Every structure is written in structure tokens, then in C-alpha cells.
């Protein structure tokens, strides 16, 4: 869709807003509506919009397929690692009480890290599915 000049200019204006809003939903999810899942989907749709308008080659130069594979694995591993921190410190799996000195701050940090892992996994899985449906004839 490179021949639409107005659309290209407006997308350049809109994309930072979409990504910023996705990050707002990710990190403000403790206080208002939102969380990792929704933020991941919004960031992924912003990135897919960029890919659709400027072409897949430009998208690959920003976030390659290997990078998405690595990042989605890192998200799940971050979640599980936070869970194992509890076991190392003598508590149950996924118990965040002793991550920091006070119990309440430990809970906050645990929830923050877990949501970050969910967001990373969801956004990269969505981008990966989009990539694999749309580059025809290419080796993944």
C-alpha cells in the first residue's frame, strides 16, 4: 500500500501513539483496566499495521523472525523463573512474598514481572503468526 501518500504520513504519526498506549495499558494494569494480554495484542496490531503499509521487508529489518521466536520463549521463561524464585526461597511455586524485603512490595514486583512475561509472549506469537501466513515462498 505504498501508493497511498496520505496513509503513509498518517501512519508515521499514529504508530508511536499506538505503541505508547500499549505500554500504558501494560504498566498501568495494576491501577486501571488492562494487563499483559491486552497490551501484547495492541502492540502486535500496531506493528502489523506498520508491516502492512511499508512492506514486510522493512518489518523484517526491525524485528526478524528469529528474534520473535527468541522473545516469545523469553516471555514464558521469565514467568517460570519468577515462579521458581519462590521455591528457591523456601515458599511455594509462584509465591511472590519474599521477592523483596516487605511482603506487599514483593507481591507488586512479582505481578509486574509476570505481566511483562505474558505481554512479551502474546505480542511475539501474534507477530509470528502474521509473518508465517504472509511471506509466501520464503524460508521461515
Amino acid at each position, binding site marked *: 500500500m505504498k501508493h497511498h501518500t496520505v496513509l503513509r504520513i498518517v501512519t508515521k504519526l499514529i504508530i508511536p501513539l499506538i505503541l505508547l498506549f500499549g505500554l500504558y*495499558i501494560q504498566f498501568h*494494569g*495494576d*491501577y*486501571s*483496566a*488492562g*494487563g499483559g*494480554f*491486552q497490551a501484547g*495484542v*495492541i502492540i*502486535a*496490531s500496531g506493528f*502489523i499495521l506498520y508491516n502492512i503499509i511499508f512492506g514486510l521487508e522493512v518489518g523484517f529489518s526491525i524485528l526478524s523472525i528469529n528474534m520473535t*521466536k527468541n522473545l*516469545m*520463549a523469553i*516471555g*514464558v521463561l521469565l*514467568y*517460570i523463573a519468577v*515462579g521458581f524464585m519462590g521455591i528457591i526461597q523456601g515458599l511455594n*511455586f*509462584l509465591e*511472590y512474598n519474599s521477592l523483596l524485603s516487605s511482603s*506487599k*512490595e514483593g*507481591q*507488586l514486583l*512479582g*505481578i509486574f514481572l*509476570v*505481566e511483562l*512475561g*505474558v505481554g512479551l*509472549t*502474546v505480542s*511475539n*506469537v*501474534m507477530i*509470528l*503468526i*502474521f509473518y*508465517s*501466513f*504472509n511471506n*509466501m*515462498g*520464503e*524460508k*521461515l
Partner: protein
Amino acid sequence: MTIALLYILLSVLIVISIYVIISRNLFSVIISTTIFSMVCALIFLLLDAIDVSLTEAAVGAGISTILFLSTIRYVDIIATDTKKSAVPIVILFFLLLISISILIYDLPEPGKANVVNNSQATKYYINNSTTEMGVPNVVTSVLAGYRGFDTLGEVIVIFIAGISVLGILRNTKGRT
């Protein structure tokens, strides 16, 4: 007022789903599912389920439209006009509609505090979320704190979905 708006939106949902059954063009079916998700999210907002509404708007109207359209371009059937009549499916739809609306009478009223489902765990979450977790949004604390193991399962399901899409689509067009 909210109740009247709710009934209007629910009737809109029924009209759109009948159109989805009758229509024979895959492109307009996908567009109408997008509209269905939009109206659905507004209904969730009116019922004060704000996180569900956000999820429905982002997932149902945004990403699933993109993935459906990618899929029908990949498999190359963009519009099919089959000669098969839609009458049996419409009859089945109405039978299902009637039976579900009879069954709805047995469900508890939504949002009431003295229902059995809402009496035990929900009360505990609402009373103790702020003091134990320090998170004002109860949905987040239940999702990531109290029920963290469920969320781990969900994330792994999404991860496996990504891996299996990659495994199915890898190298099929490149080799042949």
C-alpha cells in the same frame, strides 16, 4: 435506560449472527464478525466488566480480523458462492436460540452478592486484595496473583499455538 440500550444491542447481535449464517461471501462474513465483536464489547462495558470489554475489543475486533484475512489469502478462497441453501442452518440456529433462552432462567442473576457462586472466594478476593497485594484492580491481582498457575497455563497454550503454526507452515511453499 441502560437496560433498554442493552436490549437494543442484544437484538443487533441476533441480526448480525443471522446475516453471518445466510451470507455466502467469506469477505463480508469476516467484516460482520468484526462488527459483532465491537457491539459485544459495548455490552460488556455496560455490564461494568471493563477488562473483558478491553480484551474483546483488542482481540475480537483487532487481531482476529487480521489473522482471518491472512488465512483466507493464504488458502486462496476469498469469495465462494455455493449453491447450498441456508435454510437447515437457520432452523438449527433458531432451535438453539430457543433452548438456550429457556435454560437462561435457571442461571443466577448477574452481579448479585447473595448468590452461592459469589459468596465464598469472591468476597475474600474483594476484601483482601488491597491489603495483601497492594493492587487496586482486583482483576489483575486475581489473574496474576491468586490464580497465577492458571495464567501460566494460558501463556503456555498461546506459546504452543505459535509453535504449531510455525511447524505447519514452515517450508511447505519453499520446497515444492
